[in-house]
C-alpha cells in the first residue's frame, strides 16, 4: 500500500463539525442501562434472615440484623457502600428474592460514615 503522512486528516476533518462523542458529565446525565449493577435494593417483607447473602459477600459489605423480637422477627439490611464491590452475588444468593440491584451508580459522599446505609 502506498504510504503518506497525515492520512487521518480527512477522517478528522469530517468530525470537526460533528457532535462530540464525549459527555459533559456531571452537567449532562449519563445513560445507564437498566441492567447495570448499581446499589442493591432490599425488600424486608420476604426476608427470613438466612444470612446466605452475608456469607457469600466477598467484601463483607452487607449485614442483616433482626431488630424485632425472637418471635416477631423484623429484619434490616445494612450496606457499607465503601466496601461493596457491586458484584451482586447477594442478589444471586438470596433464595427468597428480596434483594435486587438498581442502576443507581451516583453514590459518592464526603464522609465514610455516610457510606454506611440502611436499605
Amino acid at each position: 500500500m502506498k504510504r503518506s503522512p497525515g492520512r487521518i486528516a480527512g477522517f478528522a476533518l469530517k468530525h470537526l463539525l460533528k457532535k462530540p462523542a464525549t459527555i459533559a458529565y456531571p452537567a449532562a446525565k449519563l445513560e445507564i442501562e437498566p441492567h447495570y449493577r448499581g446499589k442493591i435494593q432490599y425488600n424486608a417483607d420476604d426476608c427470613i434472615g438466612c444470612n446466605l447473602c452475608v456469607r457469600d459477600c466477598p467484601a463483607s459489605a452487607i449485614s442483616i440484623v433482626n431488630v424485632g423480637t425472637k418471635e416477631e422477627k423484623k429484619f434490616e439490611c445494612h450496606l457499607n457502600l465503601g466496601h461493596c464491590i457491586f458484584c451482586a452475588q447477594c442478589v444471586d444468593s438470596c433464595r427468597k428474592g428480596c434483594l435486587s440491584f438498581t442502576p443507581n451508580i451516583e453514590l459518592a459522599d464526603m464522609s465514610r460514615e455516610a457510606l454506611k446505609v440502611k436499605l
Partner: protein
Amino acid sequence: MSKITIPIGPQHPSLKEPGCFTITLEGEKVVNAVVGVGYNHRGLEKACEARTYIQDLYIIERVCGICSHTHSTAFCQAVEELAGVEIPRRAAYIRVIMAELERMHSHLLWLGVAAHEIGFDTLFMYSWRDREKVLDILAELGGNRVNYGINTLGGVRRDLEPQMADEIRAMLDIVEEQNKYYIQLALSETTLAARLSGIGKLSHEDALRLGAVGPVSRASNVDTDIRVIDKYAAYDEVPVTAITDDHCDVFGRAVVRVLEIMESIKMIRWSLDNLPDGELTAKMPRRIPEGEVFSRTEAPRGEDTHYVRANGTDKPDRVRVRAASEANWHSVKHMLEGDYLADVPIIIAAIDPCYSCTDRSIVLRSAAGERVWDWAALRRYGIEHYKKQGFDASKIKIAERKIIR
C-alpha cells in the same frame, strides 16, 4: 558521549501502572535495560485461600481490570473440573461471546495506548471512542463496564436475550467498519510505520526461547493460541483462526491485534447465530473435593494459567495465577536493548503490560539457595528490609493469620 542511566518509572507518564525500567543510554541508544516490577503486590492469591470459592470468583475477576473475564473463566474452569461438573452449552457459548467482546475492547484499548505513546493522540481518541461502544454492550450484558461478573461456578449468571443479540450485531457492524479504517491507516500512515516498524525486534527463535505468549509471540510467527491448541468453553465448535505475522516487531504486534479484532467480530457473529438453547448453570457443590487442576485460557494479552488445589472444604488450599504479562516480561529486556530512548515507551506498551496482574509472587534467592518461608519468617524479613530503608514497620499490629488446612 558518556553513558547515563535514567529511570523510567515507577512514576512516569508513559506507564499507566508502577514499574521501573532502569535504562542505560549512550546518546539516545539503549545499551542496557533492567526491568523492575513488584510495586503493586496485592496478596490476591493469599486472600483467595481465606475465602470461599464463590467469594474467590470476585477476587480473581479483579486480578486484571481489562481481562477480568478470562481470569474468572480460567478459575471457574478449574473449580468445575475439580467438582466434576460440565457446564451447559449455552453457558459455554455466552462465555465465548464475552471473551471475544473483551478481546475487542482490550485490543482497541491497546491501539489507543500505543498511539498515545508515540504522540498520535488523534488515533488514541478515536480508538477509545469506538472501544466505548464495546464497553456499553459489555455493561448491558454483564452489568458492569470492566468487571462483568457474568461467570459463576457452573455456568453464567445472566442470559443473552434476543434483543441484546441484535444490539450486539449493530455494534459489531459499526466497530467492524471503524476497525477496517484503522487497519488501512496502520498500513498507509507514514509516521505510524516509521515509529512502529523495525523496533522491539523479537525473532522467532527468541520468542520461543524467552517464552513469549499472545500477540507478542504470534507477531514473531509462533503459532500459539490456547483457543486453538487447547480448546476450552465453546471453542471446540466456534471456528477459530490464530492470526500470525512475520514482522517480528512492534508493527507486527499492532497488525496481529487489529486483525484479531476482525477475527473476534467474526466469531461473535457465528456464536450469536448458533447459540444453543438450554440452562445457564449446572448445580455446583459448595465443598469441592480434594485434588488439583491446572487450567488455561487465551487472554487478550496471551496465555493465562490458573492452578487451583482443593482440600475438600469450601475454601481452596492454593490458588496460583500467572497472567500473560508475567510471561512476557522476559522478552522486554531483550527487545529494549539496541533501540532508541524514544522507542522505550512504545516497546514496553507493545506487550500490553499489566503490572498489577504480574505482581503476585515472591521468590527469595540467597546464597543458601531458594527457601520456603512461613508467614512469620516472611514478616520478619519484611520488617528488616524496611528498617534498612529507614522505616520501622514492627510496631504495626496485624491480625494473627489462621492457617486453613
